[in-house]
Protein backbone atom coordinates (compact mmCIF):
# COMPACT_ATOMS: atom_id res chain seq x y z
CA UNK A 1 0.00 0.00 0.00
CA UNK A 2 1.48 3.34 -1.00
CA UNK A 3 2.04 6.09 1.53
CA UNK A 4 0.57 9.57 1.67
CA UNK A 5 2.48 12.45 0.14
CA UNK A 6 2.89 15.55 2.24
CA UNK A 7 1.89 18.99 1.05
CA UNK A 8 4.88 21.23 0.57
CA UNK A 9 4.59 24.53 2.37
CA UNK A 10 6.48 27.09 0.38
CA UNK A 11 9.99 27.97 -0.68
CA UNK A 12 11.74 28.91 2.54
CA UNK A 13 14.49 30.97 0.87
CA UNK A 14 12.05 33.21 -0.95
CA UNK A 15 9.90 33.38 2.13
CA UNK A 16 12.73 34.43 4.41
CA UNK A 17 13.54 37.25 1.97
CA UNK A 18 9.92 38.44 2.22
CA UNK A 19 10.03 38.32 6.02
CA UNK A 20 13.29 40.30 6.09
CA UNK A 21 11.88 42.93 3.70
CA UNK A 22 8.70 43.21 5.78
CA UNK A 23 10.76 43.61 8.91
CA UNK A 24 12.73 46.36 7.19
CA UNK A 25 9.48 48.28 6.61
CA UNK A 26 8.37 46.97 3.19
CA UNK A 27 4.65 46.65 3.79
CA UNK A 28 4.05 45.07 0.37
CA UNK A 29 6.26 42.16 1.37
CA UNK A 30 4.05 41.60 4.40
CA UNK A 31 0.96 41.78 2.19
CA UNK A 32 2.40 38.97 0.05
CA UNK A 33 2.84 36.82 3.16
CA UNK A 34 -0.71 37.64 4.20
CA UNK A 35 -2.12 36.64 0.80
CA UNK A 36 -0.07 33.46 0.81
CA UNK A 37 -1.29 32.17 4.16
CA UNK A 38 -4.61 33.81 5.08
CA UNK A 39 -6.67 30.85 3.79
CA UNK A 40 -4.59 28.41 5.85
CA UNK A 41 -4.90 30.51 9.00
CA UNK A 42 -8.66 30.80 8.51
CA UNK A 43 -9.02 27.05 8.00
CA UNK A 44 -7.03 26.22 11.14
CA UNK A 45 -8.93 28.83 13.18
CA UNK A 46 -12.31 27.59 12.00
CA UNK A 47 -11.37 23.99 12.78
CA UNK A 48 -10.32 24.91 16.32
CA UNK A 49 -13.02 27.45 17.21
CA UNK A 50 -15.87 25.91 15.18
CA UNK A 51 -17.20 29.45 14.90
CA UNK A 52 -17.09 31.61 11.77
CA UNK A 53 -16.94 34.98 13.49
CA UNK A 54 -14.18 33.84 15.85
CA UNK A 55 -12.20 32.41 12.94
CA UNK A 56 -12.33 35.75 11.10
CA UNK A 57 -11.15 37.53 14.26
CA UNK A 58 -8.31 35.03 14.60
CA UNK A 59 -7.13 35.79 11.04
CA UNK A 60 -6.97 39.52 11.85
CA UNK A 61 -5.42 39.14 15.30
CA UNK A 62 -2.86 36.55 14.22
CA UNK A 63 -1.58 38.57 11.25
CA UNK A 64 -1.47 41.81 13.25
CA UNK A 65 0.41 40.09 16.04
CA UNK A 66 2.81 38.57 13.51
CA UNK A 67 3.38 42.03 12.00
CA UNK A 68 4.07 43.58 15.39
CA UNK A 69 6.42 40.80 16.43
CA UNK A 70 8.25 40.29 13.13
CA UNK A 71 11.51 41.42 14.76
CA UNK A 72 11.17 38.53 17.21
CA UNK A 73 10.99 35.94 14.43
CA UNK A 74 14.21 34.01 14.78
CA UNK A 75 14.37 32.37 11.39
CA UNK A 76 15.22 29.00 12.93
CA UNK A 77 11.72 27.75 12.13
CA UNK A 78 9.68 28.43 9.00
CA UNK A 79 7.67 31.65 8.97
CA UNK A 80 4.55 29.57 8.33
CA UNK A 81 5.11 27.42 11.44
CA UNK A 82 5.70 30.54 13.51
CA UNK A 83 2.52 32.15 12.15
CA UNK A 84 0.50 28.99 12.80
CA UNK A 85 1.71 28.94 16.40
CA UNK A 86 0.39 32.49 16.88
CA UNK A 87 -2.91 31.59 15.18
CA UNK A 88 -3.41 28.40 17.23
CA UNK A 89 -2.89 30.36 20.47
CA UNK A 90 -5.36 33.03 19.39
CA UNK A 91 -7.89 30.37 18.36
CA UNK A 92 -7.59 28.48 21.65
CA UNK A 93 -8.14 31.73 23.55
CA UNK A 94 -11.34 32.33 21.54
CA UNK A 95 -12.49 28.79 22.19
CA UNK A 96 -11.95 29.16 25.94
CA UNK A 97 -13.84 32.44 25.95
CA UNK A 98 -16.73 31.03 23.95
CA UNK A 99 -16.99 27.98 26.16
CA UNK A 100 -16.47 30.21 29.23
CA UNK A 101 -14.26 27.39 30.31
CA UNK A 102 -10.69 28.07 31.28
CA UNK A 103 -9.72 24.42 31.05
CA UNK A 104 -9.76 23.94 27.26
CA UNK A 105 -6.29 22.74 26.43
CA UNK A 106 -4.40 20.37 24.21
CA UNK A 107 -4.87 17.73 26.90
CA UNK A 108 -8.65 17.78 26.67
CA UNK A 109 -10.49 14.49 26.86
CA UNK A 110 -7.45 12.51 25.87
CA UNK A 111 -7.90 10.08 28.72
CA UNK A 112 -11.57 9.29 28.07
CA UNK A 113 -10.87 6.59 25.47
CA UNK A 114 -12.13 3.16 26.42
CA UNK A 115 -9.21 1.49 24.70
CA UNK A 116 -11.10 0.26 21.64
CA UNK A 117 -9.83 2.20 18.68
CA UNK A 118 -11.51 0.24 15.89
CA UNK A 119 -14.93 -1.34 15.69
CA UNK A 120 -15.86 -0.85 12.06
CA UNK A 121 -14.37 -3.25 9.51
CA UNK A 122 -16.54 -2.65 6.45
CA UNK A 123 -14.68 -1.75 3.28
CA UNK A 124 -15.31 1.54 1.42
CA UNK A 125 -15.71 2.21 -2.29
CA UNK A 126 -12.54 3.29 -4.11
CA UNK A 127 -13.81 6.91 -4.26
CA UNK A 128 -16.55 6.99 -1.66
CA UNK A 129 -16.82 10.79 -1.57
CA UNK A 130 -18.20 10.77 -5.11
CA UNK A 131 -21.49 9.47 -3.74
CA UNK A 132 -22.25 12.89 -2.34
CA UNK A 133 -22.76 16.38 -3.74
CA UNK A 134 -19.93 18.76 -2.81
CA UNK A 135 -22.07 20.70 -0.30
CA UNK A 136 -23.39 17.51 1.28
CA UNK A 137 -19.86 16.13 1.52
CA UNK A 138 -18.64 19.36 3.15
CA UNK A 139 -21.40 19.03 5.70
CA UNK A 140 -20.49 15.43 6.51
CA UNK A 141 -16.78 16.21 6.85
CA UNK A 142 -17.43 19.35 8.94
CA UNK A 143 -19.83 17.68 11.35
CA UNK A 144 -17.63 14.62 11.70
CA UNK A 145 -14.50 16.55 12.65
CA UNK A 146 -16.52 18.84 14.94
CA UNK A 147 -17.27 15.79 17.08
CA UNK A 148 -13.61 15.25 17.97
CA UNK A 149 -12.12 16.81 21.13
CA UNK A 150 -10.31 20.11 20.37
CA UNK A 151 -6.91 18.57 21.13
CA UNK A 152 -7.43 15.79 18.60
CA UNK A 153 -8.85 17.87 15.78
CA UNK A 154 -6.10 20.48 16.13
CA UNK A 155 -3.38 17.86 15.76
CA UNK A 156 -5.19 16.28 12.78
CA UNK A 157 -5.67 19.61 11.02
CA UNK A 158 -2.08 20.76 11.47
CA UNK A 159 -0.50 17.44 10.60
CA UNK A 160 -2.82 15.96 7.96
CA UNK A 161 -4.70 18.89 6.42
CA UNK A 162 -2.02 21.60 6.56
CA UNK A 163 0.88 19.19 6.11
CA UNK A 164 3.10 20.24 9.02
CA UNK A 165 5.62 17.59 10.07
CA UNK A 166 5.14 15.72 13.37
CA UNK A 167 8.00 17.76 14.87
CA UNK A 168 6.54 21.07 13.65
CA UNK A 169 3.12 20.13 15.02
CA UNK A 170 4.68 19.27 18.38
CA UNK A 171 6.60 22.56 18.46
CA UNK A 172 3.51 24.56 17.47
CA UNK A 173 1.29 23.03 20.14
CA UNK A 174 3.89 22.70 22.88
CA UNK A 175 3.48 18.92 22.94
CA UNK A 176 6.03 16.12 22.84
CA UNK A 177 6.47 14.13 19.60
CA UNK A 178 5.00 10.94 21.18
CA UNK A 179 1.98 12.97 22.39
CA UNK A 180 1.39 14.28 18.85
CA UNK A 181 1.69 10.77 17.42
CA UNK A 182 -0.75 9.34 19.94
CA UNK A 183 -3.33 12.08 19.36
CA UNK A 184 -2.90 11.85 15.61
CA UNK A 185 -3.54 8.09 15.62
CA UNK A 186 -6.66 8.49 17.73
CA UNK A 187 -7.92 11.40 15.62
CA UNK A 188 -7.37 9.50 12.37
CA UNK A 189 -9.04 6.36 13.69
CA UNK A 190 -11.99 8.19 15.22
CA UNK A 191 -12.63 10.08 12.00
CA UNK A 192 -12.36 6.86 10.01
CA UNK A 193 -14.79 5.15 12.34
CA UNK A 194 -17.34 7.97 12.07
CA UNK A 195 -16.99 8.37 8.31
CA UNK A 196 -17.55 4.64 7.76
CA UNK A 197 -21.24 5.25 8.33
CA UNK A 198 -21.33 7.41 5.18
CA UNK A 199 -18.71 5.77 3.01
CA UNK A 200 -18.89 2.03 3.55
CA UNK A 201 -19.94 -0.25 0.74
CA UNK A 202 -23.65 -0.85 0.86
CA UNK A 203 -25.08 -4.32 0.62
CA UNK A 204 -26.89 -4.74 -2.69
CA UNK A 205 -25.17 -1.64 -4.11
CA UNK A 206 -27.51 0.95 -2.59
CA UNK A 207 -26.27 4.07 -0.89
CA UNK A 208 -26.36 3.52 2.89
CA UNK A 209 -29.11 5.27 4.84
Amino acid at each position, binding site marked *: *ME*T*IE*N*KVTGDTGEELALVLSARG*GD*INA*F*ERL*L*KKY*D*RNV*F*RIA*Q*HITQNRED*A*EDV*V*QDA*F*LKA*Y*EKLDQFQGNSKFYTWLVRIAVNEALMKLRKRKSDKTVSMDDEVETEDGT*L*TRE*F*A*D*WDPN*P*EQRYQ*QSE*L*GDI*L*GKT*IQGLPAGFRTV*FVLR*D*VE*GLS*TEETAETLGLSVPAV*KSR*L*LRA*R*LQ*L*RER*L*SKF*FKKAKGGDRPK
Partner: protein
Amino acid sequence: MKCKDFLNELNDFLDGSLDPKLKAELEDHLVWCHHCYVVCDTTKKTIQIYRENDVYELPDPIRERLQTAIMQKCKAKQKSE
Protein backbone atom coordinates in the same frame (compact mmCIF):
# COMPACT_ATOMS: atom_id res chain seq x y z
CA MET B 1 2.69 -9.59 14.35
CA LYS B 2 -0.61 -8.99 16.10
CA CYS B 3 -3.32 -6.55 15.02
CA LYS B 4 -2.56 -4.37 18.06
CA ASP B 5 1.08 -4.09 16.99
CA PHE B 6 -0.02 -3.21 13.49
CA LEU B 7 -2.25 -0.41 14.80
CA ASN B 8 0.62 1.01 16.86
CA GLU B 9 2.70 1.37 13.70
CA LEU B 10 -0.14 2.54 11.45
CA ASN B 11 0.80 6.25 11.56
CA ASP B 12 4.39 5.70 10.54
CA PHE B 13 3.30 3.13 7.96
CA LEU B 14 0.90 5.60 6.32
CA ASP B 15 3.42 8.43 6.54
CA GLY B 16 6.10 6.25 4.96
CA SER B 17 8.55 6.75 7.81
CA LEU B 18 9.19 3.13 8.82
CA ASP B 19 12.41 1.22 8.38
CA PRO B 20 12.18 -1.27 5.49
CA LYS B 21 12.26 -4.39 7.69
CA LEU B 22 9.30 -3.32 9.84
CA LYS B 23 7.46 -2.07 6.75
CA ALA B 24 7.83 -5.53 5.18
CA GLU B 25 6.43 -7.15 8.33
CA LEU B 26 3.42 -4.86 8.25
CA GLU B 27 2.82 -5.51 4.55
CA ASP B 28 2.98 -9.23 5.27
CA HIS B 29 0.37 -8.83 8.03
CA LEU B 30 -1.91 -6.99 5.58
CA VAL B 31 -1.85 -9.90 3.16
CA TRP B 32 -3.70 -12.22 5.53
CA CYS B 33 -5.51 -9.87 7.97
CA HIS B 34 -8.51 -8.36 6.21
CA HIS B 35 -9.55 -6.26 9.23
CA CYS B 36 -6.20 -4.49 9.37
CA TYR B 37 -6.23 -4.10 5.59
CA VAL B 38 -9.61 -2.33 5.79
CA VAL B 39 -8.55 -0.15 8.73
CA CYS B 40 -5.37 0.85 6.92
CA ASP B 41 -7.08 1.51 3.58
CA THR B 42 -10.00 3.48 5.04
CA THR B 43 -7.75 5.53 7.36
CA LYS B 44 -5.71 6.47 4.32
CA LYS B 45 -8.89 7.46 2.47
CA THR B 46 -10.04 9.48 5.51
CA ILE B 47 -6.85 11.55 5.40
CA GLN B 48 -7.05 12.01 1.64
CA ILE B 49 -10.70 13.09 1.74
CA TYR B 50 -9.97 15.75 4.37
CA ARG B 51 -6.92 16.91 2.49
CA GLU B 52 -8.62 17.17 -0.90
CA ASN B 53 -11.90 18.73 0.19
CA ASP B 54 -11.61 22.12 1.77
CA VAL B 55 -14.14 21.98 4.59
CA TYR B 56 -13.72 25.62 5.55
CA GLU B 57 -13.06 27.75 2.53
CA LEU B 58 -12.65 31.48 3.01
CA PRO B 59 -15.06 33.14 0.53
CA ASP B 60 -13.41 35.79 -1.68
CA PRO B 61 -15.49 38.81 -0.50
CA ILE B 62 -14.72 38.05 3.17
CA ARG B 63 -11.11 37.37 2.33
CA GLU B 64 -10.77 40.75 0.61
CA ARG B 65 -12.46 42.52 3.51
CA LEU B 66 -10.08 40.89 6.00
CA GLN B 67 -7.01 41.65 3.89
CA THR B 68 -8.00 45.31 3.58
CA ALA B 69 -8.65 45.63 7.31
CA ILE B 70 -5.37 43.95 8.24
CA MET B 71 -3.29 46.04 5.85
CA GLN B 72 -4.93 49.27 7.02
CA LYS B 73 -4.05 48.46 10.62
CA CYS B 74 -0.49 47.51 9.66
CA LYS B 75 -0.05 50.81 7.81
CA ALA B 76 -1.44 52.73 10.79
CA LYS B 77 1.05 50.98 13.07
CA GLN B 78 3.91 51.74 10.70
CA LYS B 79 3.03 55.45 10.69
CA SER B 80 2.72 55.64 14.46
CA GLU B 81 6.22 54.21 14.96
